[in-house]
């Protein structure tokens, strides 16, 4: 099994631990990756509000790379997933017009690429197979999983796919109304207070329902929930201190990898508590 790996901006910038842990986990599972290291930003729901056509054209350039490799394109970010899915749909309906533009950089795209999120690649790999690789069952962990809007809307992944992965690692995902809620990150620079309140709503809902960590499928969510958690605490006037893990880190823990290997020592909210729970 092999995928064309699109890390995106955040996993190469402010969430390097995500790129690190995804690579390690895929290696341990024997899933091959070819990184699309010349690909550009997906547009993140920003570029389409300034230059929508340019956004599609740049994405067609990225898709053409995966198409040439004849591989599915794997993203590790819910936002990239949503943008790519929508863009791919648009491009397929306007193949000629888009190809006319990318011809200028001597490339072409036939609309044959499938966009998949990391969690879908794991699902294709097989959760039973994943379960067989578990060295350290996560029985003591009660994660609250959040999907990030764009794994659910406008294109939805399989129902409960994140929870199913968690269960295959023997953790017990909590029942949690906020799993599909917005983290607020997209408006952090425009309406900071609302953005932080949105993150706070999810974090407190997770704690109030008995979660001992939050697990995210999107590095943008991770920024609001982890890097900005001290600000969220201030806005809410309530202590939170909830560790926030990337899905790949949760899997890495179950595969027996260490905190440092998975980059969990880089998080703003201390993850020691989670590690100790697993290694009781």
């Amino acid at each position, binding site marked *: 099994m092999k995928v064309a790996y699109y890390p995106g*901006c*955040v996993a190469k910038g402010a969430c390097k631990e995500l790129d690190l842990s995804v690579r390690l986990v895929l290696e341990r599972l024997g899933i091959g990756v070819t990184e699309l290291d010349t690909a*550009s930003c997906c547009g993140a729901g920003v570029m389409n*509000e300034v*230059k929508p056509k340019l956004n599609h054209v740049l994405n067609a350039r990225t898709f053409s790379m995966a198409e040439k490799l004849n591989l599915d394109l794997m993203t590790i970010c819910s936002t990239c997933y949503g943008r790519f899915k929508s863009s791919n749909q648009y491009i397929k309906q306007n193949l000629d017009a888009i190809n006319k533009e990318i011809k200028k950089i001597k490339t072409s795209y036939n609309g044959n690429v499938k966009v998949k999120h990391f969690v879908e690649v794991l699902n294709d790999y097989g959760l039973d197979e994943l379960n067989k690789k578990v060295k350290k069952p996560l029985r003591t962990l009660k994660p609250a999983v959040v999907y990030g*809007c764009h794994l659910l*809307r*406008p294109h939805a992944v399989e129902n409960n796919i994140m929870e199913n992965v968690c269960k295959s690692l023997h953790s017990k995902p909590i029942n949690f109304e906020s799993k599909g809620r917005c983290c607020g990150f997209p*408006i952090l620079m425009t309406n900071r207070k609302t953005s932080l309140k949105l993150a706070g709503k999810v974090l407190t809902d997770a704690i109030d329902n008995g979660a001992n960590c939050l697990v995210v499928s999107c590095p943008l969510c991770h920024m609001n929930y982890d*890097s900005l958690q001290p600000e969220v605490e201030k806005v809410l006037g309530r202590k939170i201190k909830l560790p926030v893990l990337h899905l790949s880190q949760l899997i890495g823990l179950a595969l027996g990898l260490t905190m440092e290997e998975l980059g969990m020592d880089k998080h703003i909210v201390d993850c020691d508590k989670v590690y100790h729970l697993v290694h009781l």
Partner: protein
Amino acid sequence: MEVIISRFNGKKRYTSKFNLALKPDLTVSEVLMLIKNSHDGSLSFRAGCRNGVCGICAVKVNNKSVLGCKTKVKDIVVDDKILIEPLDMFPVIKDLVVDIDNFIENNIDIRSAIVSSSTHKTSQEDMRHLDTVSNCIQCGICFSSCDVLNVNQSFIGPAALLRAYRCVTDKRDGLKNQRLKHYNKENYAWDCTHCENCTTLCPQGINVSEHISSLRKELIEQGLKSKGSSHHLAFLKSINKHGLLNEASYPFFSINFNPLRLKEVLPVGLRMLRKRKSPGIFHKPIKNIEEVRKLFREVKE
């Protein structure tokens, strides 16, 4: 089948349960009428056209906001149960009847009627566009399920922004500039996070979120300044330069190096630096960046 209804009598909330043998093809509105006619005459709910046109029968069923008259029981039942509740975000008057005054008054705030000032002749193409953005039936489902409204009730909400976009793009309207200035303010166009609950739940199938994006595009094209436009322009500049976003420098460009806003970016930046999590300041462009820059130059829209 067990039908559980959230009730309110003006003083307290309670639930009523009914065990009914229901034909699976019945709509939620038909079930409510059946209960009112045969089991409990005191039940209050709204039902109008019963044909998906008037938008008055919206309720929450098994945690999803829907039009009662367009939703069949068989499509929404879980474990032989349906839980019917009033829409979120609206004050409840009685049982499933909610007070929609504030939601409707948002139409006054955004001046939802066009003010004709020209003799512009509307083309077929104009009309096709106006058709797609005018299909809102004011059911309030998007308003009740908006994640932003849930934490900030001052936000004008998706339905009003859709209407705003419709008015801005109606060539007969003479208020475009005033309108855009108004929609550029805090709690209007720039406060949507694109969680896309509105798009996913809209019973009319309107891509509300995308139209809000188009409204923002109008604001930027008119050169109106805001935190949002400055963020968006800094974002594109960074992609043009690096291919991927330079997360170390773009926040500073996004706030236009405004000293009053440094407190938004500095503490988190330093905190990340301490954990060696911060992205490098010297950000090398991606390989083949020239291709990206060329497309930036060539593709104008």
